[in-house]
């Protein structure tokens, strides 16, 4: 009896995994979702480490919510004026970069107003998006998929865009890694070395913005913050060097994305919320492993 139970425990997960892999092979949508998940994990695992250590999580959240403004505008102009190339993702990228620059520039100039600016961009972006969507002609837009994510809606175009954006983000981090680390540690000293600390701070915000765009499909606008913060925050509890934290964060992000896709596929659970709950639980458990 005991032997039979043990055999079942081993065979059920492996059977599920084989079934999932067969689905990946046969169903393009699942393949696209898996690819987009893995590539975006690499990106937000790395950038999330900067976001957590520089403590700019709320700026990232404001950028994420403002993305709805870009998505709404893109859908509206696409349908109203037949601008086919203006996709929701392109709108999201433009909105994310614009929000990052607005928050960054104003907060650098008026430090004491940072929280007000974050709130304004956060709410203003969502308001703009909802207004555009309200006036968009044609059939209703699936707003829920943008707010809470649905990785199974990933198209081939999304995968290509994710790979291109991921390469750009990772390339920029590789080129300017030491300067980004220095700016996050001591902006004033960077400025004193005649290196533009403002430019690198803005670059960091733009990179965070692009990551939030990549996360919209996975976890949606509302939950994306959790996925850029939690893997890196968990990794920070386990390591004390930036590059090790990045590696752990990338590993955790990939595990959350792939694992979330497998489990939600098998158990018919929504991927984004499921992944976020798992990430929260693991972050909580990390407090048991090591004291801060």
């Amino acid at each position, binding site marked *: 009896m005991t032997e039979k139970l043990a055999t079942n425990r081993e065979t059920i997960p492996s059977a599920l995994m084989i079934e999932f892999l067969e689905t990946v092979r046969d169903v393009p949508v699942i393949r696209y979702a898996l690819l987009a998940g893995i590539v975006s994990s690499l990106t937000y695992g790395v950038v999330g480490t900067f976001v957590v250590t520089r403590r700019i999580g709320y700026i990232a959240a404001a950028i994420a919510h403002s993305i709805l403004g870009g998505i709404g505008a893109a859908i509206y102009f696409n349908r109203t004026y037949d601008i086919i190339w203006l996709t929701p993702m392109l709108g999201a990228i433009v909105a994310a970069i614009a929000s990052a620059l607005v928050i960054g520039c104003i907060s650098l100039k008026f430090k004491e107003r940072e929280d007000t600016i974050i709130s304004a961009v956060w709410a203003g972006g969502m308001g703009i998006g909802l207004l555009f969507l309200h006036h968009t002609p044609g059939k209703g837009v699936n707003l829920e998929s943008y707010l809470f994510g649905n990785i199974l809606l990933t198209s081939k175009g999304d995968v290509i865009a994710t790979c291109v954006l991921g390469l750009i983000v990772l390339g920029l981090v590789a080129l300017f890694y*030491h300067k980004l680390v220095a700016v996050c540690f001591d902006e004033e000293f960077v400025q004193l070395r005649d290196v533009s600390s403002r430019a690198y701070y803005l670059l960091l915000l733009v990179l965070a913005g692009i990551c939030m765009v990549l996360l919209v499909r996975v976890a949606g606008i509302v939950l994306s913050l959790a996925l850029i913060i939690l893997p890196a925050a968990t990794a*920070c509890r386990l*390591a*004390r060097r930036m590059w090790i*934290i990045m590696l752990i964060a990338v590993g955790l992000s990939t595990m959350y994305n792939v694992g979330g896709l497998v489990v939600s596929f098998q158990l018919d659970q929504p991927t984004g919320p499921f992944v976020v709950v798992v990430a929260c639980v693991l972050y909580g458990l990390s407090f048991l492993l090591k004291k801060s």
Partner: protein
Amino acid sequence: MNAISCTDLSFGYGKVRVINDVSFEVEKGESIGIIGPNGGGKSTLLKLILGLEFPETGTLDVLGQPAGKDRRKIGYVPQAMRFDPLYPVSVLEIVLMGRLDRLGVGSYSKECRLVAEEALETVRLSDFKNRTFSELSGGERQRVMIARALACEPELLLMDEPTANIDLSAEEQFIEALASLRKDMTLVLVTHDLELVSELSDSVLCVNQHAHRHSLPLSGETIREIYSGRRRVEHDRKTRHQQGDHSVCAHD
């Protein structure tokens, strides 16, 4: 040539005048302490020298150039305690930040690493290079900050309250590290610690909106004058040590 030449300098934040008609000179190779009461303009003067703020009136030349024009030969040591102690960065990485102006893209050159390691050697922290900042005591962190400034290969070294929040034994190590640098560069030390000033400086610039140069040692009368009757830092390190004052030294 002077390391710092300041003539009729005035500066304020909005309508609040912080520095008023200040003139002084610091010769190359000289060590000078800048003291004065809180809000007297010490840190503002330091920011002006660093080129982080600019004079409203008057002129301020640093190493022969208007302040802020060329900062490559200026080393700056801020208070180590203002940094996030949990930031995940190694001692060597922090010191390498002193070579940031020589870093284009990618990694630091071998030469940069060599200079950074030499700077760590100078402050006797070579064995700590792979440790993270969070593992160090207050005094060790402050020495890392000096090493970072030395990695800039400075002709002028500016320090802002370098012994604030560090314990007494670490303070002694810190003074020892600084004393060895006096012969190689110009030192400007902003502090409340008069004993530190008397150990490391040739003279004192007392700043309280205006500035007056005094030679050392300072008399009690002068100190009272500077602090407007509030002799807030006339402490004796040895007495504090005997009394068991080991404040703020624990490893975080």
